Every structure is written in structure tokens, then in C-alpha cells.
């Protein structure tokens, strides 16, 4: 779900900075996910692609691996074109699931780092 080595390697073991960046990511992620869910629902593939890309980039930077793959998958689907309602339901569920997993981890550890 979250690979803390990504941030720690890059920051040369500076745990404080890593925690600050992970905190920033956690501040941003609920909004990014919400906007992404909206994009899936309204079926605008351009919007979906942009928002998925943003979440993918953010997740990649901090090492939120599962979220990154989920967002990358959404971006790919958006490029292909419109989604059936069944596909939509599947994607919504997956995204919410990943978000919940991340939040559960945060609760358990009291933060990402």
C-alpha cells in the first residue's frame, strides 16, 4: 500500500521531511479522489484522464504504490474511451477500496511515516 523507502531514499534518510511530504499527500488525496470519483460518474473521459494522472503522479512521488497503480489503470481506461456503467461501478469500487486501505494504514500507524 505504501512504500516508505521511496521517500526516505530520495531524502537521504531525512524522516522529518519525508513525514512532511507524506502529510501533504494525505491532505491532498481525499480531494483528488473525490474529484476523480466525480469524473468517473459524469463520464467525462478528458477530465477523468487529467484527474487520474494527477493522483498517479502524486502517489508515484511519495510511494503510495497501490494507489498509483489504481490511478494509472483509470488513466489508461480514460484514454481508451467511454465506460460502460458496469465498468464505472467496478472502477469506483476499486478506487474507494484503495483509498480506504490507505486511510486504514494511516489510522493504524498514526500517519504514513
Amino acid at each position, binding site marked *: 500500500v505504501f512504500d516508505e523507502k521511496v*521517500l526516505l531514499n*530520495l*531524502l537521504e534518510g531525512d524522516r522529518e521531511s519525508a513525514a*512532511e511530504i507524506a502529510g501533504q499527500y494525505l491532505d491532498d488525496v481525499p480531494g483528488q479522489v473525490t474529484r476523480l470519483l466525480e469524473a468517473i460518474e459524469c463520464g467525462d473521459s478528458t477530465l477523468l484522464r487529467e484527474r487520474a494522472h494527477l493522483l*498517479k*503522479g*502524486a502517489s*508515484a*512521488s*511519495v510511494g503510495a504504490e497501490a494507489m498509483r497503480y489504481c490511478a494509472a489503470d483509470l488513466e489508461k481506461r480514460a484514454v481508451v474511451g467511454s465506460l460502460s456503467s458496469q465498468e464505472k461501478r467496478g472502477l469506483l469500487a476499486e478506487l474507494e477500496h484503495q483509498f480506504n486501505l490507505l486511510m486504514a494504514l494511516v489510522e493504524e500507524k498514526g500517519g504514513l511515516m
Partner: protein
Amino acid sequence: VRALVADDDTASRLLLQKVLTKWGYDVVMASGGEEAWKILTGDNAPGLAVLDWMMPELDGVEVCRRVRALDMSSPPYLILLTSRGDKQDIATGLEAGAADYVQKPFDHDELRARLLVGRRFAELNRKLLDTQRELRRQALTDPLTHIMNRRAILMRLGEEMARAPRQGLPLSIGVLDIDHFKSVNDEYGHAGGDFVLQSVVDRALKALRPYDALGRIGGEEFLIVMPGVGPRDAEIVLERLRKIVRVTPMAVQGQEVTVTVSIGGAVSEGESMDDLLHRADDALYRAKGSGRDLVVMAPRDAEGADPVVETSTKATSPGGD
């Protein structure tokens, strides 16, 4: 080294800021392409930029394209950010003007090394520009007196001759020659002669205004370009110059030597540069012929070719024997 980080994602931006700061970069941030473009084209623009490929409004590739289209003399080193596995064609980014790309998630060693390449590039480019500037300066400067050389002062005269009628302002010139320079050289050697040349220049610069130009056009011959100066003031300025040289003796190899100069002045009447210089040369020739240590102004059109207007302070004895 100043480095720009442009990314619409706050966490990625913060991460790059922290990492680059650790590596000694002076980081500037932008949250979008438009802001990045403004920073790259503004004052004190960074020499290195890390741009996210996908940003709303103006993406990284478009920023690269625009920067490239500017054809700057020292363009910033642009690194595009992509995510690993993105289908984007790297060639598109490089063709648009990016120098390199890196992928998210960042690899510590790779990011550091790629930034170093950019830094090296920026430094090489700066050295190249410095060298270019220095060579240009040398090509236009007289090495002995450090004023403009012949090429530079004639270029300046050309510029001023083009500017003067546009602005409706007068323009005057003076051709100055050191009197009996050959005997200075004979007596004190070339080192002494060089010293006299430098000393004359020092004094001349004191007599001139900041916007006048002085250049060495030959061995002991100088050209003075005086923008905005018309018939009323040209001889006043040139007289001041002649006097300041005369009244300030030079210590040439421990001996006080008084040097004098002759000056031929001319006020531009819209003729060609050659004609203007020719009139000033003629006036100088008359100054030499009339006993030296003199300013002679070339006759103006309205006055005809004669008589020569002498502005010497010397009394001319009538008749004689």
C-alpha cells in the same frame, strides 16, 4: 544554481523542493505552466528547470516549445517529468526543446546525476557567453589606452549620425592629434610615448561629458564624438580639452613634460561619415599649419570654404617681419 520546479501536484513539488535544496540548489516553485513560463522569461531566470509533463493550461512540453522558440542566448536546461509507464513519446518532449527527462517515482542517484548534467551544461554555456563577451570587448577596445579602438569609435559615430537627425539634435566631432609625438618617442622611447598617450586620454576624459565618446583612431590620433553638441558649444568643449592637456604636465620617466594637442572640429551637416571626418581632418591640418596647440573648426556650409575660424587663445601679431 537556481532551479525551477513546476508541478501541479503539491506533494511532488514539495518533495522536489526538499531534495533539490538538500543538493544545494536555490529552488523556485511554480504550480502550473503559465507561472513556470513567467519565471523562465523573467528577471534572474533559473538556469535549470524541472517541469511536469502534464499540467493544466500550459503543460511542460508546451513550456519547452515556447522557451525554444525564444532562441535565447543562454537557454535554461529543461528536464521533463513523466511517470514510469506513461505512453508519452519521450522524443516529442526532447524535440519540443527539453534537454532530458526523469520519471516518477524518482530514483535518488539518477535524479541527482541528471541534475548535475544540467548544471554542467549551464556552467559551460555561461563560460561560453563570458568568453564571447570578453572577445567582443577586446575587439572594440584599444589595449593601450582602454578606450574605444578605431573600429568601435567609427561604429559609434555611425550610430550617432543616424540618431541625431531622428532626434533633431546636433552632432559634432573632433579629431585630436598629439603635437610633436615623434620627438616624445625619440626622447623617451616607446614606453615614454605610451605613457604620454595614456596621460592624454586620462586628461581628455576629464574634459568630456559622460555621453561623449573618445576613441583612438591611429598612432597618436583620437576621435571625439559629441552627440547633442552644435556649433555654439563644439569649440568650447574642444578648447577645454586642448587646455586641460596643456596645463597638466606629465611625469615622463621622472621628468615633467608639457604635451600639447591640435584639434580639428566639425559640426555634422548631414553629410556622409567620410565627408564629416574629412572636414575635421582638414581643420586639424590647418591647426597644425597654424602653429599647433590649437582648435580649428571646419567652416560651416553657410560660411563657405574660407575663412577658417580660429579659436586659439594665442594672439596673432599682425604684420610681423
